[in-house]
């Protein structure tokens, strides 16, 4: 008997647990479908409902406030959607609110999304009809996505071509993998860096010089900036101009003189162009040569003369 009671207790606990789970589950399901809350019926007319079904959620500013209660086709372009909205939420919805067909995420269920309208509206009442707006058109999105996809295909192909060209035998990637070339490039870069450093230094020096010159420092600065030196330089330039004029005059005189020399009968003309003079000069030179030879003989004879011998001997000793 005790065993039977124990079994009955366990069975009772088991059955109660099962029934409790069932009741709680059904209550939660019912509360999600607003079965246990006070509701208000509102309506909206759509041109198309994009797969909306009875039981789908109704959202106001992103919060679940009710469910779709009934969908009725009124005409070939008009569908009436009856919605059940919780009273506590309905008091915040105004008559100028706009209902749209939306989707719960990209893959989620369809739903009716109610958004506040512009301006002030009256509070929502039972069986009121809401204005409707165009919802998010998934088909249009997909069409746009298809076009984007086509563009992506084209871009991808061009990128592939570019990559192939870069990776070809003479492409940039192959060149980059060439160690010799890379060393050369590295050297060039180093030299460019050095040149840049030098250029920078040069620029700095130039700036310094220009600054010094502008400040009147150094010879050039003094030359440019000092008014006394400026006057002296101007005087010097005037003197140079005077000297230049004198030199011009002298050169003109020399030219005239040279022209006189070169004129027939002149000294230069006679020396260079007169053949008679040349012949005479040659004869004189030949006579001088003969005379010189004869004179040498006479001198050697004179050396041997007893009268002058002593003199030449002393002279020879003096040379030694």
């Amino acid at each position, binding site marked *: 008997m005790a065993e*039977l009671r124990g079994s009955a207790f366990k*069975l009772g606990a088991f059955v109660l647990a*099962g029934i409790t789970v069932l009741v709680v589950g059904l209550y939660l399901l019912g509360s999600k479908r607003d079965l246990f809350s006070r509701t208000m019926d509102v309506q909206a007319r759509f041109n198309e409902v994009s797969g909306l079904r009875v039981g789908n959620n109704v959202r106001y500013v992103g919060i679940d406030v009710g469910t779709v209660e009934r969908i009725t086709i009124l005409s070939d372009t008009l569908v009436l959607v009856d919605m059940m909205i919780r009273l506590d939420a309905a008091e915040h919805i105004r008559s100028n609110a706009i209902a749209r067909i939306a989707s719960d995420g990209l*893959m989620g269920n369809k739903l009716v999304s109610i958004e506040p309208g512009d301006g002030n509206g009256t509070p929502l009442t039972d069986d009121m009809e809401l204005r409707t707006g165009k919802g998010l058109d998934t088909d249009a999105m997909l069409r746009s996505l298809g076009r984007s996809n086509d563009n992506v295909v084209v871009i991808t192909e061009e990128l592939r071509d570019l990559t192939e060209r870069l990776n070809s035998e003479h492409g940039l990637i192959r060149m980059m993998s060439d160690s010799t070339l890379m060393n050369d490039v590295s050297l060039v870069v180093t030299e460019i860096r050095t040149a840049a450093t030098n250029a920078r230094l040069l620029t700095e020096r130039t700036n310094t010089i220009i600054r010094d010159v502008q400040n009147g420092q150094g010879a050039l600065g003094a030359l440019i900036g000092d008014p006394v030196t400026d006057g002296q330089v101007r005087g010097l330039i005037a003197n140079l101009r005077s000297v230049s004029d004198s030199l011009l005059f002298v050169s003109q005189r020399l030219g005239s003189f040279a022209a006189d020399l070169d004129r027939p009968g002149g000294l230069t003309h006679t020396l260079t162009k007169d053949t008679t003079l040349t012949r005479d000069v040659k004869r004189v030179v030949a006579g001088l040569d003969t005379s010189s030879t004869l004179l040498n003989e006479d001198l050697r004879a004179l050396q041997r003369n007893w009268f002058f011998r002593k003199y030449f001997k002393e002279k020879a000793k003096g040379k030694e």
Partner: protein
Amino acid sequence: MVEEEGRIASNCNEVFVWPHCDLTFINSLSARKSYFLPMDRSDVMRGAKAIITEVGELVGFTGRFFREAFRSRFEWRELVRQCYLNGYRSLPLVAITAFIMGLVLTVQSRPTLARFGAETMLPAMVAISVVREIAPVITALICAGKIGSSIGAELGSMKVTEQIDAMEVSGTNPFKFLVVTRIWSTILMLPLLVILADAIAIWACFIGVNMKGAVTWQLFQQQVFDSLVFSDVLPALIKSIFFGLAIGVVGCYKGYNTEKGTEGVGRSAHSAVVVASLVIFILDLVAVQVTEIMGLN
């Protein structure tokens, strides 16, 4: 196998004479001749006839149950005992299976959903799968194995030991006492087991979701109950009532009609499991079609 007494075919081509054979052994072999010889048209016809006959008897047995089920006097105490044995005692096995089922389903589904960036749909997907199909069918199959075989073996033992005949002689209605109570117990207990299996599997799903993520229980149960509707729960519960009926009826029928001694008891237990499992799948198929026709899918 046996062409005639004393002649045994070891296979289709070879026939030899067994001069010192035991007639009982040969008779037992003859019952299994279809295992060894190719079936001809008469065998197929005989098999089909046997199946149709068994189906007819099963339907008749079910009809008898419904006639007796609502007729007084009820064996309440035996019903409670059977509910305890078939329901409460099956809970640990069902609970462990449901827990593993929910956890494995979650862990296995996650990579596929993650590929589509839809991991947040995991609770909803597992909940719908478990509540609509997996929990009722798996629980029914477990019960078919545990309860069906138990009922088949128990009633079969009573039948071959003539305890059922003794009950009839003593003025007790054995069908009402043994069969009706057992079938009612399976009808009542299976939906409860399915509900608890649903809850345990969803809880296991929560653990599975949190193994590689962080979802609060509040958000999890919101996602679960947002995805579920009455048309998910009620057809599954109604289906599980029919599964319970099938397990009870098949187990009791097999046990109640046990023949051929202790060997028959084992065969009854075995065939109770097989037939009950088959009936469960057929009922599931029918249930899917009915819910589809009624627009509940």
